[in-house]
């Protein structure tokens, strides 16, 4: 069975007419879109001409492999050509050429995307921004920092901290993720509850469209109501509308003192009361409020020995991390947090307060390394969803009963923003049958449950490639049609990040057709149904007649 499948796949990959086919556990078979050309030697020569310098055009397998590695190792790319430009003009030249030649491209940052949005699906050209890592300036009056899209988040944070400012974004992956990728995915982060979304904190942007035109709104002011706010299109577009090359982000003044505490809590209702109390007492001084359950805590203790977990022996069903800012001496800040915790003492079982930077790093490490701990335990299925606070933790016990002994289910996340990360992990990476069993139990059940509760199927990770086909569960058909209209207007040849964000593949069309035909009760041939997949530019007469 397996051997035959592998042989079939090899044959399908070799078929030059189709240009290759890949099999994904979540998408089934996906064929390479034949409207894109393949990369030829004269293309590589042209790129070498417009990108002067060494190591700007990579084609050897050894060098290119690094840029094809995906974070969860489930959707590794097959790109054969990687470009590393150094300025917006170089990217403009690249995209103008690719648009004319119909070569698909993927702008790439730190490859920390959890939905395979950063790597190629077939042989798209990868445009990596890592050489564009200059920080231009930080204005001390407005706090606006101008930087290139390849700056690593941790470097930007250090730059701001040295000058008395705080970058409004903070993620666990800050050591490798780049600003361009953060903007493309509209990353939320740990301090979202205080600073809000990147949509609000981005003041200016420079992006390159698919046809090579540069849209420059980098030198913008806080207030500028002249025409449509084009930069908002690119933030969250995940590279499908254009490549972001520079950004101007608003930074906030650094608080004088920061207090951090780690609490052990018995029941999820206590977390809800603490959340209301904290928002009331601290207001905008509440910079982070996170929760995790015992399963996540146990895995961090087991797999991440470099992080010292706060409670060595005591265990509670839930844990919370609360961080507050204060413009005053450290003693006052600690006192305020302490008095809040004492006022909530009937909801809290135990708690610790961080007294120095090392302890603060250990407490944050316990929260930030949960994702890594799950990946170390085994094959992980991640669901990053937004739900109402009342129903926040509901899905985790439901999934635990559904999955049973086959896998471990943990829930953790930003309870202040209503965003929970549900991770389901199978022990080890070798047991393929168990993994696929668990996968079938989970998808599409989890996402349909979220859609039932009118939640978002992807709160901050984005849709990328892994969740593209579930977009309809969170957005209506009219919304998706309007998005497609914008995409076709800005990228008519569809070269920017193909196969991503928008649903594709036979499963979606099949389901849509099934739904409409069951309503209409029209018998129709299989040939007619197959024609829907290939002749997409035509309109089905049956659906038109019956509206």
């Amino acid at each position, binding site marked *: 069975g397996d051997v035959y499948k592998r042989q079939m796949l090899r044959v399908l990959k070799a078929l030059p007419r189709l240009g290759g086919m890949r099999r994904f556990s979540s998408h089934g078979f996906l064929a390479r879109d034949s409207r894109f050309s393949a990369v030829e030697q004269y293309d590589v020569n042209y790129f070498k001409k417009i990108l002067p310098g060494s190591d700007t055009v990579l084609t050897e397998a050894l060098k290119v492999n690094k840029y094809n590695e995906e974070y969860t190792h489930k959707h590794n790319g097959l790109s054969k050509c990687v470009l590393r430009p150094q300025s917006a003009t170089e990217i403009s030249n690249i995209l103008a050429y690719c648009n004319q030649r119909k070569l698909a491209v993927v702008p790439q940052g730190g490859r920390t995307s959890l939905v395979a949005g950063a790597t190629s699906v077939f042989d798209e050209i990868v445009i990596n921004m890592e050489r564009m890592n200059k920080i231009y300036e930080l204005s001390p009056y407005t706090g606006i920092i101008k930087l290139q899209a390849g700056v690593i988040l941790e470097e930007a944070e250090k730059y701001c901290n040295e000058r008395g400012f705080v970058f409004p974004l903070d993620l666990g992956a800050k050591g490798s993720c780049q600003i361009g990728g953060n903007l493309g995915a509209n990353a939320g982060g740990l301090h979202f509850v205080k600073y809000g979304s990147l949509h609000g904190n981005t003041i200016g942007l420079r992006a390159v469209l698919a046809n090579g035109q540069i849209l420059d709104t980098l030198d913008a002011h806080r207030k500028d109501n002249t025409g449509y706010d084009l930069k908002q299109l690119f933030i969250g577009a995940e590279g499908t509308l254009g490549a972001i090359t520079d950004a101007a982000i608003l930074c906030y003044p650094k608080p004088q003192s920061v207090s951090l505490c780690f609490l052990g809590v018995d029941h999820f209702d206590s977390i809800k009361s603490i959340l209301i109390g904290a928002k009331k007492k601290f207001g905008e001084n509440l910079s982070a409020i996170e929760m995790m359950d015992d399963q996540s805590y146990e895995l961090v203790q087991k797999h991440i020995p470099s992080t010292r977990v706060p409670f060595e022996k005591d265990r509670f069903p839930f844990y919370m991390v609360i961080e507050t800012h204060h413009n005053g001496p450290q003693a006052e800040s600690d006192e305020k947090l302490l008095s809040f915790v004492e006022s909530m003492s009937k909801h809290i079982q135990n708690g*610790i*307060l961080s007294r120095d930077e090392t302890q603060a790093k250990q407490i944050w490490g316990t929260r930030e390394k949960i994702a890594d701990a799950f990946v170390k335990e085994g094959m992980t299925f991640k669901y990053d969803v937004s739900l109402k606070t009342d129903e926040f933790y509901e899905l985790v016990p439901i999934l635990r009963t559904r999955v049973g002994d086959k896998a471990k289910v943990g829930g953790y996340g930003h309870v202040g923003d209503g965003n929970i990360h549900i991770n389901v992990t199978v022990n080890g990476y070798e047991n393929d049958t168990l993994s696929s069993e668990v996968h079938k139990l989970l998808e599409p059940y989890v996402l349909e449950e979220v859609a039932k509760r009118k939640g978002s199927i992807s709160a901050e990770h984005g849709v990328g490639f892994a969740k593209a086909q579930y977009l309809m569960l969170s957005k209506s058909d009219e919304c998706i049609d309007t998005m497609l209209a914008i995409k076709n207007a800005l990228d008519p040849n569809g070269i920017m990040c193909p196969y991503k964000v928008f649903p594709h593949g036979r499963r979606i069309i099949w389901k849509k057709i099934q739904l409409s035909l069951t309503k209409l009760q029209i018998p129709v041939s299989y040939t007619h149904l197959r024609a829907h997949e290939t002749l997409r530019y035509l309109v089905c007469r049956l659906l038109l007649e019956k509206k």
Partner: protein
Amino acid sequence: TQSTWDIIQIRMRQLKCLVGVKHCLDNALRVRVDKAKGWVDLTGCKMSLNPYCEIAVEEAVRQKAAGVFSSTTSLTIGGPDAVETIRTALAMGIDQAIHIVTNRATDVDISSLIVARVFKHFIQANKFDVALLGKIAIDDNNEQTSQIISGMLGIPFATNANKIAFEKEGTISVCRETDEGIEKIQFLTTPAIISCESRLNVPRFVNIMGLKRAKSKKIETIKLEDLPIDHHCNYKITSIKEHEKKRASQRVELSKIGELIKEHMIQPIFASTT
């Protein structure tokens, strides 16, 4: 169950412990040297408990829980803002604290000799049996306070303690970390001084209940000038500057070594005197 006689025996054997606690720059922060002034500027920097003192505090609290110590007292020399660090020590489990208040900078103006005199005064006055100190303070890096105290009082001391065990007979055995291996020392008499290494224990996080209890614990505040000791520093630090960047290493031919030595003015150890 223990009979009254056993309890009396245990209480008679229990020791009084003095713990050194220093309020200094947070371990994780990088020191900034002001090149123009030639001085370290600590205003606005986060200060916290010296990590080696934290280890001493943790050891004292553990031995108190094990019944070896009857009471633990912490001793801090610092400004008014050192109260935060003293509260951390009290929250970890120390019973009471003594705070010697001074406006002088504890990293440059208070020498180890002054600190040793203060410790000597309290060890003699309050009759402490064991003094637990951190082996080194991370701001001035003097690493000599415990040695000076023992010299002044003529009492046994052990530095770089890796493990401390209090025997029933009243002796204290300490394992010291040295370059050649672990050295075991036994103290036959008290008072004694032990300075703690990083591998002695892992200090606990400060519990919120502990912080609440710490508010009711006693902190005795005394001015440094009021103590009957000589508090004048017998040296003055004129300036502080950062290390020069290390020169890149270079390969040298054997024949050219003589020139290099002359160039960099290194006195060869084995130069002949004839």
